[in-house]
């Protein structure tokens, strides 16, 4: 058993991959709580697609792809905040417009690149086992930064999410905080891209948080449970990917989904089985 656990760690790419999977799993799970509670699941997906032009431009200029992705994600996040400010457009409408436009721009730019490079497919599908130690440092620092801000601004984020009217009476700069939250989500999405790729980022944000929601009655508990689910999924998913020789990002997301399903069925009070049992008693 121990051998089974230790064997993969003999490879340095697996060590780096595991570390990246843990950081990304926890980060996505924590910020994902706000994504779930504020109903922004669509946003995570959109941001992931919207980074494509940034990546393409960075590639064309020969720059760092991650930096390109970050810049694009922040621009799109602030764009969404701008178009939906004070209810001019609904947030999901603003997201729909920006997401499709940015994706189209990305596809256009990429189609000008004659040699469709391996690096770009990594952004699309993720490659956690190809994480370099430089990438890992960047992931770690961004992760600590984002989590630090979430902890530091816990009360303001709680109030703007739960009760915007109270936020106004207490004179919180709600628009600024909302944009900051969008930027934090954007940073998280970019960090998660190298693990699971564009298509699966939304799952990393939403699934652990949704599962944790069913188990908790307070936000700090929800965040802690969500982080634990994210970490376990990253760890287990990567081992499954190692031994079953399947795509790592997909394995992580599937473990996440399996945990969610278990909790959805068996959670005390809110689980499906629990509710059926209670209805029968009546």
């Amino acid at each position: 058993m121990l051998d089974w656990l230790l064997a993969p760690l003999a490879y340095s790419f697996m060590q780096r991959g595991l570390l990246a999977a843990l950081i990304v799993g926890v980060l996505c799970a924590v910020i994902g709580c706000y994504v779930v509670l504020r109903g922004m699941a669509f946003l995570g997906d959109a941001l992931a697609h919207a980074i494509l032009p940034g990546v393409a431009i960075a590639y064309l200029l020969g720059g760092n792809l991650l930096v390109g992705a970050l810049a694009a994600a922040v621009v799109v996040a602030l764009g969404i905040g701008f178009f939906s400010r004070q209810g001019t457009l609904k947030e999901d409408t603003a997201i729909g417009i920006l997401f499709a436009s940015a994706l189209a721009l990305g596809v256009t730019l990429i189609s000008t690149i004659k040699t469709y490079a391996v690096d770009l497919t990594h952004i699309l599908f993720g490659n956690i086992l190809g994480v370099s130690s430089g990438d890992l440092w960047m992931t770690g620092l961004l992760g600590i930064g984002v989590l630090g801000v979430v902890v530091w601004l816990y009360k303001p984020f709680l109030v703007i999410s739960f009760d915007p009217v109270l936020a106004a009476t207490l004179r919180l700069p709600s628009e600024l905080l909302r944009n900051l939250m969008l930027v934090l989500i954007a940073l998280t999405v970019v960090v998660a891209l190298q693990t699971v790729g564009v298509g699966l980022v939304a799952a990393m944000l939403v699934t652990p948080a949704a599962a944790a929601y069913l188990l908790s009655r307070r936000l700090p508990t929800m965040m802690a449970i969500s982080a634990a689910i994210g970490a376990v999924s990253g760890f287990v998913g990567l081992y499954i990917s190692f031994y079953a020789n399947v795509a790592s990002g997909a394995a992580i997301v599937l473990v996440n989904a399996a945990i969610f399903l278990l909790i959805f069925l068996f959670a005390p009070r809110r689980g499906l089985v629990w509710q059926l049992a209670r209805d029968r008693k009546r």
Partner: protein
Amino acid sequence: MTRSNDVLLEPARLELENVSVSYNGRLALQEVSFQVLHGARVAVVGPNGAGKSTLFKALVGLLPIRQGRILIHGRPLGSHLDCVAYVPQREDIDWRFPVTVQDVVMMGRFGKVGWFSPATARDRQVVEHSLAQMGISDLARRPIGDLSGGQQQRVFLARALAQEPHILLMDEPFTGVDVATQETTLELLDQLRDRQVTIMISTHDLRLATERFDQVILLNRRMIAYGKPAEVLSASTLSEAFGGRVLVLPQGDVAIDDCCQQDHL
């Protein structure tokens, strides 16, 4: 901080000068002017869509003022951080949010605690006291989604108490709650009067407005009348506010048909 505290010791005073507010790009309130003295109890009445909620949202700074100005303690809106408490309409709250009753009431202290400091013993004491006063101490650790409508209303009243406000705004506090909660709310208003808290509520219930409030503001996009209930709620002002939905009966009684709501005076 000390300077604004000095100002807050003055009696609560609320003045609106020629205030217009738009909502969703439409002018929802036009040139409203009135003054509320400290400790007064004011009911805002008017038909649906008259701008009652708009008025309250403008008072807390949630909607931008298009014209005119709002003064609290003689100073413009926004100079005071935490002297207005607002009890929102129940449907404005996301009841599925993972917070307990205690968490919600503690939010009322955030303005005083500061955003980055932990709650002090006094904050916890105020929260406990507010819960006790609303009779919901035993619910403190329950998630808000588990509560009945009346209990939910009490949670937000307790939060408003914990804010220790000078002005308390309540949007339709008597709509859709049980009789016991309505009585608790009214008792709370009496206690707050002793503390000289200025209270403004919006309501559909004209009888309640007449019997339990010092002043009534009759609103329909603009201010139709303001003063003592008996002066304000006359047959002519009511028909002005409610239009064709008012029926004046021979004895001088008035019946209003406002979206299935019958109020008799």
